[in-house]
């Protein structure tokens, strides 16, 4: 895909001697929403860490806007417009809700997202802006984590395990808010274990299994049987 915003090419990733990814190739076009699904340990988070630079690889393994970024430091990749809502929220516990959001925008990238707009999207955060971020409920913390990522006005937004550890009603409200977030034509990669949720928002899906892409295709063209085979390897 030559016009891809972001692509990985024969991406192998390692933790020490342990190889976590084997020749993974994904691509996302500008404005596209894709989902990456797979069971625990399939390599989804490793893939996210490779894209964001938390895990360093060979330069040519990850390309973004035609530049090789596979070996760039994470903060330099963030400055190019890739943001992530990390698994488990990972808020800064010494910072208040508002400070967590403000520091998300500290690079000064211009765009539609401001503190006011985050507070419009999640009004509860405005009420609780002064409390320590970790004093919030899990769902509210997820809102802060999403807001923190949006504050950098990214061109590509990654959601790692967006619904993991949250109550179903919270997951629903977060998914209800998603169209407002990605409606601005932001390219988005959603990592999910919940297949139905992933298929409902993504136009294309990659399924991962044991560090490899086991299936890819348009969400509306894949059958449940194909997905379960690729997901569980049965």
């Amino acid at each position, binding site marked *: 895909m030559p016009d891809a915003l972001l692509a990985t090419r024969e991406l192998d990733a390692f933790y020490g001697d342990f190889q976590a990814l084997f020749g993974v190739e994904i691509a996302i076009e500008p404005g596209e929403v894709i989902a990456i699904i797979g069971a625990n340990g399939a390599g989804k988070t490793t893939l996210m860490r490779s894209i964001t*630079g938390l895990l360093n690889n060979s330069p040519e393994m990850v390309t973004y806007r035609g530049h090789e970024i596979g070996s760039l430091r994470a*903060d*330099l990749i963030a400055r190019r417009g890739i943001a992530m809502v990390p698994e488990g929220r990972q808020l*800064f516990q010494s*910072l208040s809700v508002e400070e967590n959001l403000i*520091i998300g925008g*500290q*690079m000064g990238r211009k765009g539609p997202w401001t503190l006011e707009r985050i507070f419009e999207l999640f009004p509860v955060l405005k009420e609780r802006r002064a409390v320590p971020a970790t004093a919030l409920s899990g769902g509210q913390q997820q809102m802060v984590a999403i807001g923190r*990522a949006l504050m*950098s006005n990214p061109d590509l937004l990654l959601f790692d395990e967006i619904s993991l550890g949250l109550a179903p009603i919270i997951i629903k409200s977060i998914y209800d808010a998603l169209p407002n977030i990605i409606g601005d034509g932001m390219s988005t990669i959603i990592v999910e274990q919940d297949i139905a949720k992933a298929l409902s928002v993504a136009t294309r899906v990659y399924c991962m299994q044991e560090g490899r892409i086991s299936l890819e295709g348009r969400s509306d063209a894949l059958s449940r049987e194909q997905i379960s085979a690729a997901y569980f390897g049965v």
Partner: protein
Amino acid sequence: MDWINAIIQGILLGGLYALFAAGLSLIFGVMRLVNIAHGDFIVLAAFLALSTTTLLGINPLMALVIIVPVMAGIGYVLQRSVLNQTLGDDILPPLLVTFGLSIIIQNALLEIYSADPQKMNAGPIETASIAVPGGLNIGVLPLLMFVVAVAVIAGLQWIFYRSALGRAFRAVSDKQDIAQLIGLNKAHVFGLAMALSLAVVGIAGVFLGIRTSFDPSIGPGRLIFGFEAVIIGGLGNLWGTLIGGIILGVSQNIGAQINPGWQLLAGHIAFLIVLAVKPRGLFPRID
């Protein structure tokens, strides 16, 4: 009356100890680095101030304008070039490397300045004093140093909890990986923290050199005072560090009042009592 005088002088001395301690506390809070060479950097700053005053013929208090930025620069370069390489899950490498730095600084100073005690002269202000009711006299210089110490603590407190730089310090301290994800370069942030730490060391060193005589060997002793002030006050609490410094200063002066030989011992005993009663210090903020 002598006792009240001893306590007041002790409080003022505590300001200087808080200056010894503030930079130590700051970098431990941001990057969990214990800088064994901290005391030697204080002495280094004193010697740099000595050279500056003799070279330019200026008052040591004026030398602050040069020493503080120079020390900050040394701190930034040191962190980026050496100390960042030692940080990781293991806390031993930074301890060993700063221990080595301590020895290098002491011996370099010994080589350049010899072992002779030195002192800087700040002029008439050194003997000026303010008479207060009750027949007591408070020295202008110790009072000035105390006021500066309080201002430095207040300034650090403001930077840490109110400024963008402080937000970056706290974010990197909380979660280094996630801080990188929002575009903070932790190597640079750590460099700035060490620069700030050694800027305070610059002030402490100049004040030390005006207040007492100094030689290349006294760094580790200042490090101990700084440690004790931090621990008494409670880790991660800057105002606590000021109070820790004051408790240390007052204890030392009361000890000296009883018997001049007991000055240092009394300070250490006060420290041990606090450690025994409240092992996490009086006002702990971080675990």
